[in-house]
């Protein structure tokens, strides 16, 4: 299988002025050193915390940013020197609602972008109704998109990016902010694209999404790839762990530090869930340390304790730290 996307030692540094007159500049390394290949027809996931460099990497590949150093080729074309050829070969979505003309109807947006993608009018005439149907916007295509829900705008983005039927797609957090039904519908569209042998680079925060969709995953942290493998192999890397999940109330950072200092505790993370908190502890000793953990939470209300097998999310947490 041939290589569709080849990225070698990609680096991107932003210069931000730190003085009023703008003479003092500070360098911010968004992507430090990223290398990976994506095969034709592969769905490759790029995971990482906020600010890790995922969107910057995608923007460099989509020709919107010029790398500070390193090279990247898309379908054999260099993203800096053959940007025009790259643009003809790719489709892209940046998560969220931006990037559309809100005062126009969905169909007018697609007509405009079809023209920008240099589609023949007769081809556009066939392709637009097909795509509107594909993304489930039939019957709403003549409404101004300022009245669309977030999910509908996201689906319109999918239709937009498929107008010229590109072989390579960049989907940067396509399900961000969608309700569960909307996100599920969008994942189903991505699966269909996968079955059409499109090459897809997907970035996401949702581990179950990456686990369900991706052939391979690269985990990016501080602008560098810290792991690159299949979801299965990444999970294998944490098979020695068990995960203890507890529903707790009112836990502060000092308690987390105390737990992290306990023997056999690999990582500790805390997530707010409305009034409750979800405390997640990774440990190679599993249920053996549950009592010690509860002893350390003396005085705090603890409900529901579950010890489970690790998931891709646990592998991710171990890789990026928690």
């Amino acid at each position: 299988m041939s290589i569709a996307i080849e990225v070698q030692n990609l680096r991107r540094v932003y210069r931000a002025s730190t003085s009023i007159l703008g003479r003092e500049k500070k360098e911010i390394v968004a992507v430090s050193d990223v290398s990976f290949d994506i095969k034709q027809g592969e769905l490759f996931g790029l995971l990482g915390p906020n600010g890790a460099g995922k969107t910057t990497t995608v923007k460099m590949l989509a020709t919107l940013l010029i790398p500070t150093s390193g090279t990247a080729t898309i379908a054999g074309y260099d993203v800096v020197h053959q940007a025009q050829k790259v643009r003809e070969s790719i489709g892209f979505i940046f998560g969220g609602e931006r990037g559309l003309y809100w005062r126009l109807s969905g169909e007018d947006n697609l007509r405009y972008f079809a023209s920008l993608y240099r589609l023949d009018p007769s081809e556009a005439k066939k392709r637009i109704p097909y795509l509107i149907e594909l993304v489930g916007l039939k019957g709403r295509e003549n409404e101004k998109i300022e009245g669309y829900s977030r999910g509908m705008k996201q689906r319109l983005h999918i239709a937009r990016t498929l107008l010229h039927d590109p072989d390579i797609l960049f989907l940067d957090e396509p399900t961000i902010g969608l309700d569960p039904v909307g996100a599920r519908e969008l994942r189903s569209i991505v699966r269909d694209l996968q079955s059409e042998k499109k090459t897809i680079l997907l970035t996401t925060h949702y581990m179950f999404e990456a686990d369900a969709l991706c052939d391979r995953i690269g985990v990016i942290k501080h602008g560098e790839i810290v792991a690159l493998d299949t979801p299965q192999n990444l999970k294998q890397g944490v098979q020695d762990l068990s995960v203890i999940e507890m529903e707790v109330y009112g836990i502060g950072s000092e308690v987390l530090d105390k737990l992290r200092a306990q023997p056999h505790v690999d990582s500790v993370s805390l997530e707010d869930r409305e009034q409750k908190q979800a405390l997640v502890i990774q440990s190679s000793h599993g249920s053996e340390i549950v009592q010690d953990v509860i002893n350390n939470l003396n005085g705090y209300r603890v409900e529901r304790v579950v010890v489970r097998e690790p998931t891709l999310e646990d592998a991710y947490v171990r890789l990026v730290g928690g």
Partner: protein
Amino acid sequence: MLQTTRQYTRTALMAAEVVLKEMAVDSFIMFTIVIQPLIIALLGLWMLRDRPDAAIYVVVGSGMSGLWSSMVFISGNSINAERWTGTLEMLVAMPTPLYVVTAGRNLAHVMQSLLSMIAAYAVASLFMGYALDIDHPLLFIPSLFFTVVAFISFGLIMAPIFILSPAVDQFKNGLEFPIFVLCGFLFPIALLPEWTTPFSYLLTPYWAARALHESAHGGGDVGVVLASWAILLLSTVIYVAVSRRLFRVILRRVREDGTLGLA
């Protein structure tokens, strides 16, 4: 080559259609291109109420002010609006060059701002009873055509500068009124101090105003009108050539600086 030209023309016209549809529901834009020039026209007509023969001068001048305001304000605003809404990044990452889209957008701005000239004409003739005869329509219509083309190409020079950074947008306020004055939209530049004349000669809108005023109200001196057309054509060719280069350089720069989007 022919196919590419056809594709680019289609896209430019599509971009114009998008702008017209979007602007039709924007009250600020409608004020800038219709109401503001109308106010200027009414003030001018009132000030020159003893000289009904000058009414057409005021109507043409107020139309030109609408044209210029549209170029400076709306072109600049629309680029920054595209930056805010995330569509500027989309446009840059498309296979169609951005100057094609910009030319279409400028066409829409110019066509729409001609509305202000028609509005002023209608008010002066229908409500104020002025006889607004255009002295030399055969010279006026081509003058209008060359003006439109020259303004579109002038907008092609300005657009990449607005793309460079959102900060450039702040300077556009200072560009509006000096051009009204220096280009003789509302009164002849002969009334200005002599040292300002070379500046006027350097500005395309001055030659457009001169061709339009001369054919609408002046003596219809064919030599003056033809010279203005020649300068408008020459400046159009220069602006188009310079803007192509400017788009290339500035788009490379914003991709290096990362200033295309806001995030």
